Each structure stands twice: as structure tokens, then as C-alpha cells.
């Protein structure tokens, strides 16, 4: 018998509204199609003119780890983003045509600005940003907006929180949560400075020294046992999923008869590279906080702490007792499905792995990262799920993945460039409203996938929409305040994010996982009922009611109300004792609707 875990869907489907209400928003498919063609023409033109440009110079910052030999880059430069966007569309459209699936219309400007803000900066645009965007007639305004958002500091911070969840996963077994605030700050800086991503990953994998100085070392403290001792097997699992997109840990315990891709020796061979990592402060007070130190060891065992695995000479690892097969076997450090490097007795094994992983010719790294970014923007990986590249889970668009990956690598692992390429495509700029013939599974990127706002995006969007005072601690879900040992006190935003952090393992971007407590909070907490700063402002400045309704729509849904919405809203406001009561009520209806919590 199988246990089915998705009964929620029964209810969800059962309750899905299927009544035929008059269309209250005037659709603009014709205009959209014109716009789509315009963008395609622009992109095609750019493609024709495209010439590779040199890779960006690398920022001059002191390396945080010992210098290592990196193979000379085979970078031939990056191409025009518009050219790549055109290539994306060509490859998507080819498959749409082959499958005879129609594409949805282009998103209108309101949908686009909301989506771009949410995807690139992790929050909705302010009412004024939407207002000016809607009124601008510049034909290249979408491309310009993408550039502006990429330059905003929120780009780095919102990406950092996404990557933090991948690299510093919340862990039911760890006594003290690691200081992910410092880790996120480190990631955010690197995204904002647009450091080549291969460099960032090497810096992460080769982290050393006190985490107060090298916050990327928190990676090792998080992928550890209950007492913050780094664990080679956990590090291997996280690293392979995050940067290679593979489930190497399937082979942790034994070889699989049906999955010939990975052998137990691949898992433990990779684990061997992490075998000597130590958290010198582990096990003691402050192990997870600022006092912890990641340090190389000379050979087996330093005085404090303990190495991440049983290692023997030449960096070999011993398969531990928890495995089912081959316990005690000595496995030399070896690249997954790759050669066994000659590591000799070097004190550090990680550099060899980090260099191998991030080399331009590595067949896992480029596609994995390109696919992860694609999934972030499109709501669905070309290989889906993104951490499960395997022969039975083929890419839906192999050529597209290859093209994206090639461009990413050749651009010098330029993240902002990759984002520009994806976001300027028509595929990204399509509406999420299905048309006849493309409902159901969205295997061909015929429409935009609807994504549920992450807890962070929801918190930050509420702050934008309500103009502050939106995020208050959920008293009953309070996590510990500041503790000794270096990690900072939780802010109200942290409380909110923790409270809304309900996503289940393996859930996709479109799975709605917020439950009753979260709904109660949005429904009944005071700031969503009355007292939002935005209402104070609107009452004070007392614009006409129509203008207030419009402002509230722009602030929350990034669009103007349709005529019928305006009519109903005004009727409601008129019924209330005071205009303030009316605005409060309207804001409540805006925040408490699916359109607000979804990125569509």
C-alpha cells in the first residue's frame, strides 16, 4: 500500500472556483501578441549583431582561501543577452510548434513588472514604481527594468536567501541553528558584486578560518551533525545536489541494481575530499556561532574537534558502519564518475575537488546552475526537479539547456548575464493565464508557471505594499532570541519567515504550502485589518476615493483595478462608517487573496 500525501489537492480541486463570472478585467490579447512580436524582432536583431564581448574583469578582492591553481579559463566571452533570449525563444517555440501547443499571450506591463520585481528582487514593486512603469512608452522599458533591478541590492539578498536554503538547509537534528544571517550576507555581496559564480563556489568549498572572518565557512557548520561537527557524507549530499544537480546519496549505502549511474565508490570517493574538514570549536559552546573555525588538519585528528570522516593516508576514506555494504572499505578520493586524482599527502583535499567541479569543462556544474536559475524564473526546471539529473529524468529541452549552460560558462559564470538572457526572452514574459490547448501540465513553457511567494518574498512584499509595519513577530511561534555564541537575534522579519516556512521537501514552486496558522495571521492580525501605514498616508493626503482604490491595487497587485472591481470597491467603501474603515477593509481583501500571495 502506498501512503498518499496530497489529500489537500482533493479539497483544493473540489473548491476550485468554476463559475462563469463576467470578465472583469478587459483582456488585451491582441496588444499582447503585437508586443510579443516586437520583442522577438528586437531580440532577433540583437542576435544578428551579437558579438562576443570579453568576460568581465574579476573584482580585486583578497582571496579568502589559499590560492589554488585553476585551469586557464576557456572563456571566449559573452554574447548579447538579446541574442541569447532569441535563441531561448527559438528553441522553446520549435517544441511548442512540434507539439502543436499554443503559447499564451504576452504578460501585460502590470504582470511583467510584478513578476520581474518578485523574481529579481524578491518583493513586489511599490505603487509608484508600477505607476511610472505603466505610463512609460519606451519600447525597451522591460529590458531597462531588468537592468535596473539587477543593479538593486535586493537582487543579491533575495538570491542569497534562496541559495542559503539549498546550502544551509534547516536541520531537525542540529542543536543550534547555524548563523545563516552572516552566510546570506556573504552570498548577497557576491551576487551583487556579480562575482563569477565558479569563484564563489570555490571560495565556499575551500572555506577556512574563523567564520566571523569567512562566513562561507558556515556551509561546513550547517552540513554537520548535532554538535556542529562537519560530516563528509552530508557535505557530499548537499554539494552534489546544489552544484551538480544529482542525487549521489542514493548510492551512499550500496550500489543500486537499477541505477547504474552512481556507485557507492562515487559517493564515498567524493566524500573523501571533505574527510579532513574540521570545525575546531565543534561540540562546545558557540559551536554553531561565531566562534567556530573551519580548519585544515595535518593528518588524522587535531586536538579539538574531529574530522568529517574516517580518513586514512592519501586522503582515502573508510565507509562507515551505517552503510549496508562494504563497511570498512577504503575508498580513495575520486571525482564522481571521474578519475582518481593524485592527491598525495597534501594537507588540503578540497581544492582539487573545487577546481574539478567548477572547471568550464565540468559536465555537471554549468548545466546544473543554468537549470537552477531557469527554474527560479520559470517555475520549473528544464531538468525537473533541479537536483535530479539522471538518465531517467531527461531535460525537456536539451538544446536549450546546453545553450544556456554554454553561455553561462563562456560568459565567465556571469550570473547577472544569465538572468538578463532569461528575463528578456518571450518565454519569460508570457502571461500565466492559460489559453485553450495549453492548460494542464506546463511541459513546454507555453505559459508562465504560477509560483507561490516564498516566506521572504511575502514578508518583503507586505512591507512594500503596506508601506511598513507589516511584519510583526508571531508571538506563539517565537524562536529563541539572541544567544551567546555569536548568532544574532531574530528580527520580526525572521519570525515572520520562520512562521511561514512551511514548504515541504521536494515541493515545487507552484505548490501552495501555507496552512491555517498562516492564513489566520494574514486574516486577523491588526496590521492587515487596520493601521497599515499606507492607509494612514492615504487618509492624510485625502485623494479622491477612486485614486485610493487605484493606489491600493497598484501597491498590492501591481495593476489598476478593472472597472467592475473599482465599482464594487467603491460601493464597499461607501458602506463603511468612515473612508478609513473602507480602505482598511479593501486592503484586507487585497492581501487575503490568492492573487497577492502568488507570483503569476
Amino acid at each position, binding site marked *: *500500500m*502506498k*501512503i*498518499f*500525501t*496530497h*489529500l*489537500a*489537492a*482533493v*479539497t*483544493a*480541486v473540489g473548491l*476550485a*472556483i*468554476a*463559475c462563469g*463570472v463576467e*470578465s*472583469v478585467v478587459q483582456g488585451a490579447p491582441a496588444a499582447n501578441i503585437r508586443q510579443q512580436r516586437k520583442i522577438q524582432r528586437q531580440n532577433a536583431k540583437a542576435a544578428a549583431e551579437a558579438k562576443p564581448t570579453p568576460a568581465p574583469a574579476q573584482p580585486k578582492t583578497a582571496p579568502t582561501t589559499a590560492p589554488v591553481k585553476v585551469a586557464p579559463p576557456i572563456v571566449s566571452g559573452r554574447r548579447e543577452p538579446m541574442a541569447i533570449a532569441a535563441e531561448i525563444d527559438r528553441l522553446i517555440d520549435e517544441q511548442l510548434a512540434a507539439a502543436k501547443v499554443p503559447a499564451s499571450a504576452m504578460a501585460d506591463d502590470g504582470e511583467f513588472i510584478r513578476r520581474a520585481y518578485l523574481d529579481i528582487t524578491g518583493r513586489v514593486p511599490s505603487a509608484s514604481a508600477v505607476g511610472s512603469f505603466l505610463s512609460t512608452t519606451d519600447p525597451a522599458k522591460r529590458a531597462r527594468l531588468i537592468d535596473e533591478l539587477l543593479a538593486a541590492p535586493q537582487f543579491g539578498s533575495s538570491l542569497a536567501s534562496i541559495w542559503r536554503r539549498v546550502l544551509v*538547509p534547516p536541520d*531537525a*537534528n542540529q*542543536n543550534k541553528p547555524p548563523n545563516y544571517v552572516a552566510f546570506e550576507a556573504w552570498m548577497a555581496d557576491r551576487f551583487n558584486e556579480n562575482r563569477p559564480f565558479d569563484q564563489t563556489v570555490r571560495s565556499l568549498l575551500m572555506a577556512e578560518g574563523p567564520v566571523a572572518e569567512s562566513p562561507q565557512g558556515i556551509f561546513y557548520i550547517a552540513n554537520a551533525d548535532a554538535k556542529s561537527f562537519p560530516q563528509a557524507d552530508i557535505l557530499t*549530499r548537499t554539494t552534489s545536489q546544489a552544484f551538480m544537480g544529482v542525487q549521489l546519496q542514493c548510492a551512499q549505502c550500496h550500489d543500486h541494481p537499477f541505477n547504474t549511474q552512481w556507485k557507492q565508490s562515487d559517493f564515498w570517493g567524493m566524500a573523501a575530499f571533505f574527510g579532513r574538514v574540521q570545525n575546531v570549536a565543534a561540540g562546545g559552546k558557540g559551536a554553531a556561532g561565531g566562534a567556530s573555525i573551519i580548519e585544515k588538519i595535518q593528518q588524522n585528528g587535531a586536538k579539538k574537534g574531529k574530522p568529517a570522516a574516517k580518513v586514512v593516508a592519501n586522503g582515502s576514506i573508510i565507509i562507515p558502519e551505517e552503510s549496508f555494504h562494504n563497511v570498512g572499505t577504503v575508498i580513495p578520493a575520486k571525482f564522481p564518475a571521474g578519475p582518481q586524482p593524485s592527491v598525495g599527502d597534501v594537507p588540503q583535499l578540497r581544492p582539487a575537488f573545487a577546481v574539478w567541479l567548477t572547471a568550464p569543462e565540468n559536465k555537471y556544474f554549468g548545466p546544473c546552475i543554468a537549470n537552477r536559475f531557469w527554474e527560479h524564473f520559470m517555475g520549473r526546471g528544464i531538468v525537473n526537479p533541479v537536483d535530479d539529473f539522471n538518465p531517467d529524468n531527461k531535460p525537456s529541452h536539451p538544446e536549450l539547456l546546453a545553450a544556456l549552460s554554454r553561455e553561462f560558462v563562456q560568459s565567465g559564470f556571469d550570473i547577472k548575464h544569465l538572468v538578463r538572457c532569461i528575463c528578456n526572452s518571450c518565454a519569460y514574459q508570457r502571461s*500565466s493565464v*492559460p489559453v485553450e490547448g495549453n492548460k494542464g501540465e506546463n511541459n513546454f513553457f507555453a505559459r508562465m508557471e*504560477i509560483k507561490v511567494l516564498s516566506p521572504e518574498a511575502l514578508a518583503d512584499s507586505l512591507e512594500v505594499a503596506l508601506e511598513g509595519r507589516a511584519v510583526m513577530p*508571531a508571538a*506563539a511561534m*517565537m*524562536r529563541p532570541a539572541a544567544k551567546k555564541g555569536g548568532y544574532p537575534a531574530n528580527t520580526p522579519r525572521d519570525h515572520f519567515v*520562520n512562521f511561514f516556512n*512551511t*514548504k515541504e*521537501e*521536494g*515541493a*515545487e514552486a*507552484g*505548490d*501552495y*504550502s501555507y*496552512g*491555517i*496558522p498562516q492564513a*489566520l*495571521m494574514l*486574516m486577523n*492580525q491588526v496590521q492587515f485589518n*487596520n493601521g497599515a501605514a499606507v492607509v494612514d498616508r492615504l487618509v492624510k493626503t485625502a485623494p479622491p476615493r477612486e485614486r485610493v482604490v487605484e493606489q491600493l491595487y497598484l501597491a498590492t497587485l501591481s495593476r489598476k483595478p478593472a472597472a467592475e472591481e473599482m465599482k*464594487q*470597491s467603491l460601493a*464597499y467603501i461607501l*458602506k463603511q462608517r468612515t473612508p478609513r474603515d473602507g480602505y482598511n*477593509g479593501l486592503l*484586507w*481583501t487585497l492581501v487575503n*487573496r*490568492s492573487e497577492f500571495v502568488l507570483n503569476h
Partner: protein
Amino acid sequence: MFLKGLASGAGAISLGSFAGLFSMPAFAEQAKKEQKHCILLWLCGAPSQFETWDPKPGTLGGGPFRAIPTKVPGIQVSSLMPRCASIMDKLAVVRSMSTKPSEHFQGINLLNRGAEPRQPFVRPVLGSVLAQQLGHLDSAIPNFILLDPCPEGNEFREFKAGNMAGWLGAQYGPVRAGGSYGIPDIQRLADMTVTDQADREALRQFLVKKYENDHKSAAAGSQNAAFERVKGLMSCASLFDINRLPEADRNKYGPGTFGTHALLARNLVENGAPFVMVANGMPWDCHILNHETHQMLVPELDRVIYHLVTDLEERGLLDKTLVIAMGEFGRSPWMNASHGREHYPTAWSLAMAGCGLKRGVVVGATDPQGYEPIEKPFNEKNLFATIFKALGIDPYAEYDLPHLPTFHRVEDNAPVINEILA
């Protein structure tokens, strides 16, 4: 992946005794289905087996309390539990629990999830599993209620802040209530009238239709479903109000908050709640003044178990309700220098009663000093298999979790504790 389970959906929907709480009268005929319930008296901090179910008077570490005879000849319990002694013929006690973790956080997770952690996968806690198995997603009364009037509490607070529902998903997470903090945000704001709320809701309903109709999005449907459930929950908020319970009952169970919340649990179960967990911080962690604290806590527990079991029986609910009283491990057979007992997972006791269990039985035994089990040691997997079996749930079923390794409700086919199963 989201739509999996559609086929099994209908069977999981049924009605409780409080018909007004359910929003889908179409399923009324399912009302015949026997609703099963579980109340977990979660004795967090870890109570002492010596001062409860496995007294060792006269031994070096046995403590000051006597052992007293019970209604079942040959079975003795601590003198702090005279009422439980009088209904021993309704209880099932395991005296040979033997588990591994000796720290609270790991112990709390182990005894709530029933297996060691396997990172990064998060196994759902017992309450979430039972909410999914015994509950109804359309019911107004929540399927997993956690009553815990003491919100603070170190490791237990960390646990509560964590992901309880694990891979089952947030819809099987707990609705928390208790003490002065109640269910967060369940009340309408004081300055909002019913009409205000209805007006807003009418506007909201009207405005969402277009979007949901256009997008046909499962996520939008789920959001709306959660919203509907919240409205249902707000309608049964009074079930969570201790002050509405009969005073005579409050006097029997109370006046301490653990007792009054156990009474609330009884009331919720009577009204159809499938799973209620009653905790009260982690008061049992007696590293200091063990006996001085147990002299107060155990008599309260004694009264609570007695009244809960007898009340459920009187109401004809004991056959359908499994009551479990346990902590995350036991306490050491030796005393430290602070009148305290330390954590002790090697040999400890727990008690159960009701649904699917034998009555008046003790299984397992420890050596004379209480250091080791000498008969039939059981671990968390045996316990969880037993709980599932008692409630009529397949203990070894495999989860259908796309992209995840294979997991079972209870791993390793760990055997049930046959001695206590009816």
C-alpha cells in the same frame, strides 16, 4: 505530483459527531465510519519511571516513594499514583522502553517522529501522520491540535518552531493553542464586527473569482481552501475556550494548566478532533529537586489519566480513542548531588490506554535497580508500529514521495508490541 492521492481522497472524508462543523454535507453518509482519536499526553522533559510506572522502593536510587498495589494483582505503581492504581485494569504499561538519544532535542524528535533523522528529509510527527490518516481536510475542527499552555521551554520550543509535518506538508501541521496565548489570531479583532467581517469577505469572494477562474491554478485553489478552513476554525473557536467547560470538570482535571488542557483535549475529541497533543512546557526535566517536583507533577498526571480514561469510557469513546502518556526518555536510576535525576534513555516506562489495546497489562521489566531492561526491550519503532496498529493503520506502508528516497510509516518492519495489542 500535487494531484496524487486523488483516488484515495473520498475514503478519507467522514463526519464526526458535531455535524455543524463540517462544511460538506454531501459526505454525510460517511458519518457511519468510526472516527478514531488519539490523545498524546506529552510529558516533555522526561518523567521519572521510578516515581510513576516502575517503582523500585528500597533500592539505592529508588527514591522516597513507596510502591502501591493496583487493581491488577501483581502490578504495583508509585504511591504518587493511587488513582491510576485503581484503574490499572484499563491501562497498558510498557516498562522496558529503550531508546538511544539522551538529549532532549533528539529525544523529542525521536519520540514524536518514530525514527532517527535522515537528513535532509523531515519525517512527520505522530500528530501529522494521524491527522492525515484519521482526519478530514474539510473539517472545521483541526486535525492536529497541539495544546501547550507553556510556550517557553528550550528544546521543546525549538522542536515546536521546527517543521512538524515534514514531508506530509503544512496542511498536516498542528494548530497550536493553550493557556493565555490561545490559537494565535483566531479571534476577530475587537473592533471588527461580524458584519464588518462579512462585508469584507463578500468583497473578497467577489474579487477573487476572476483571477481564479482565469488562472485555474492549483495554488490559488489551495490558498482559498486554507482560507475556507480558517473561517471554519474561527467558527469553532469556542471549543478551545477553557472557561466554557463545566466547572465540575475543570475542578476534576484542574486547576493546573496541564489538567485543564487535558480536559480540553477530551472535549475536542468528543467533538470530533482526531489528534490532540497535550503538553505543558518541559516541566519533567528534574536535574534538580526531582522528588520535590515529582511530588506535585505525578499526582496531577495521576488525576488526569484517571479522569481522561474513565470519562472516555463513560462516553463510549475509550474503544475509539488511544491515550498515550510519555516523555522523550526516562530518568536515571541514580541521584545527582542536586536532588536530581539525569536523562536516561536506556530503560524507561510509558503508559497507554484505549483503542486497540489490551487492558490491565504490563509488558517488559527492568533489573532491580532499574539500570537495564531485562525483558523485551522496545524502541521508538516498536512503539510507533504499535500505535498505528492499535488505531487500525498499516504500520509499514510506504510513503508515496516523488523524488524522495523510499520511506515507510515505520521503518525496518519493526515488530509491534504484541503483548499490549488487543
